[in-house]
């Protein structure tokens, strides 16, 4: 399924932020290859990998339908996904869809493990395919940005100086929290939450208190209680995504407030 025009526009808008500020991704799946800095060149490979993955999953579900749980090794689903270059391409460029891929991948895998009806597993398979196509669209868009020199190279958050930049980075890292939860790596997700709070949000909250103390208090609770608790309890990924989405809305409000405050602050000299 190809992305519709409006979906591409929405994607472009959100990627326009996350790509330019993307920083130091830490993957659980080994080093990121140089290919992510030459996306355009590797687009044909990515497309082949997506086709291959979809075929592999379809074959596995078909075997399950014919032979039952004993006929398939569902662990191979994860191995196939981790083996392809496309994995890193989407992880470094559009984390929300990356999280969806993991979520539906585990949907298929766990469905087989729990011997759920084929119809249920086919629904998860369909979600996985949609996510993979959406991801390929996102990577193609990222390749265009990269060609135009608008895509930041990975691994440097030293340029984050303005509050709105820092808040955008916080939102990006929260997307990674969802991705790690979807990967069933709750400790890594929790570490990202704690580091993001200590290294990025805590430095901003002082200025934000005078603008909207209740907003800061609410975000403090989200960072320190609500989200870590949801991760600790290994809540459903949709619940974690909901917590993160709520936080991101609050962070958008914070960004607006801080920009207003900054425009009104006095000069130093």
């Amino acid at each position, binding site marked *: 399924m190809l992305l519709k025009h409006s979906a591409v526009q929405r994607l472009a808008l959100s990627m326009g932020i996350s790509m330019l500020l993307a920083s130091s991704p830490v993957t659980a799946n080994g080093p990121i290859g140089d290919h992510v800095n030459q996306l355009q060149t590797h687009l044909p490979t990515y497309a082949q990998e997506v086709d291959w993955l979809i075929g592999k999953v379809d074959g596995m579900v078909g075997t399950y339908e014919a032979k039952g749980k004993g006929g398939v090794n569902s662990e191979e689903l994860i191995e196939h996904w981790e083996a392809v270059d496309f994995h890193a391409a989407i992880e470094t460029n559009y984390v929300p869809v990356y999280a969806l891929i993991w979520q539906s991948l585990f949907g298929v895998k766990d469905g087989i493990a729990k011997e759920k009806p084929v119809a249920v597993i086919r629904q998860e398979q369909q979600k996985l395919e949609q996510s993979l196509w959406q991801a390929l669209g996102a990577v193609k868009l990222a390749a265009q940005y990269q060609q135009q020199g608008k895509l930041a190279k990975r691994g440097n958050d030293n340029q984050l100086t303005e509050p709105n930049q820092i808040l955008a980075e916080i939102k990006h890292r929260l997307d990674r929290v969802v991705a790690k939860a979807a990967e069933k790596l709750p400790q890594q997700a929790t570490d990202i939450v704690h580091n993001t709070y*200590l290294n990025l949000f805590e430095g901003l909250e002082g200025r934000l208190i005078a603008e909207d103390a209740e907003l800061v208090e609410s975000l403090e609770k989200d960072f320190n209680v609500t989200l870590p608790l949801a991760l600790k309890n290994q809540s459903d990924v949709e619940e974690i995504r909901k917590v993160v989405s709520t936080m991101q809305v609050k962070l958008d409000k914070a960004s607006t407030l801080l920009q207003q405050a900054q425009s009104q602050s006095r000069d130093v000299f």
Partner: protein
Amino acid sequence: MQRRTFIQGLVAASALSSIPLTRAFAESRVSAVSVEQLPLLKGQLTLYLGRGEGGLYEKVLDAIRERNPALDLRIRRGATAALANTIVAEARAGVRRADLFWAVDSGAIGLVSEQGLAQPLPKDLTQHLKAGFRYPQWAPVTGRIRTIPYNPQRVRAEQIPKNIMAIADSKLSIGWAPAYASFQSFVTAMRLLKGDLQTASWLRGVSKRATSYAGELGVVMAVERGEVDIGFANHYYTLRLKSGKPDANVELAFTENDAGCLVNASGILALSQNETAINFIRYLHTREVQSFLASEAYEIPLVRGVEPPTGLPSLASVSPPDIDLTRLAELRPTLDLMRDVGVL
């Protein structure tokens, strides 16, 4: 945030006694200078900057850059503790990339200083600083004071003990944030001043009537809402809250001569013998920068002749303990103690 233990001994003052802030002002003979009196900065400087204050430090740096076009200021940003560890690691590897380290807490300064990496500062630089804040190898930039925010509709100021230790025996309901770095620095100061046994007893006593919050702003907000009578928090949370909500039901009380009114500080040290680096520090001590950080970040100026932030009560009655701030890096025993007592 984890801090490492470091070797004591940077500061000449050793007695853990109090220094009334009013007296501290009187002892400083030299007022802050204006930026107009400073030489222009030239050449290349590399600053390691601990993140904090939501871009206000960046605004100071931008202003310094704008005023000094011949200065090539390179900045590496990161969490204060991480940068301190980086500086130490670089030194062990035989390299020095930073000329200056501006940290948001004095514990990280201690971590670098104990390795012998900080260069001595000229005396004429520290003479602008208030007494009790003059260190030979690092310069405090601005301060923050521990306070007791209270709700005046639930409790009168005279009901709040002037001795932090006595609060454990009071009947007041309390809000606190034991997991918060500022609170842990305060407990470290209590350990240094009163010892582990008394501190453990105090933590046990307070915990019986305490409600925990995620952060110290949460503590102040809880006091304001009337969920608790009093709380423990740095001063700026209350000032910032009152800035946005002038009729907030919260006032500040101070204990006397104990960890309850500790003044902690952000600070800067020079890692190279470089005149431009030293002069850069002078810029941070100018009237203009100190006044900016007081009015915009609600931080306490630590040079003479600059007004404290609006809303901070007269300091005449406040007498913080005299304590080597770099010793606040001794966090590990504090965390162990808090875990043993069961408050972490």
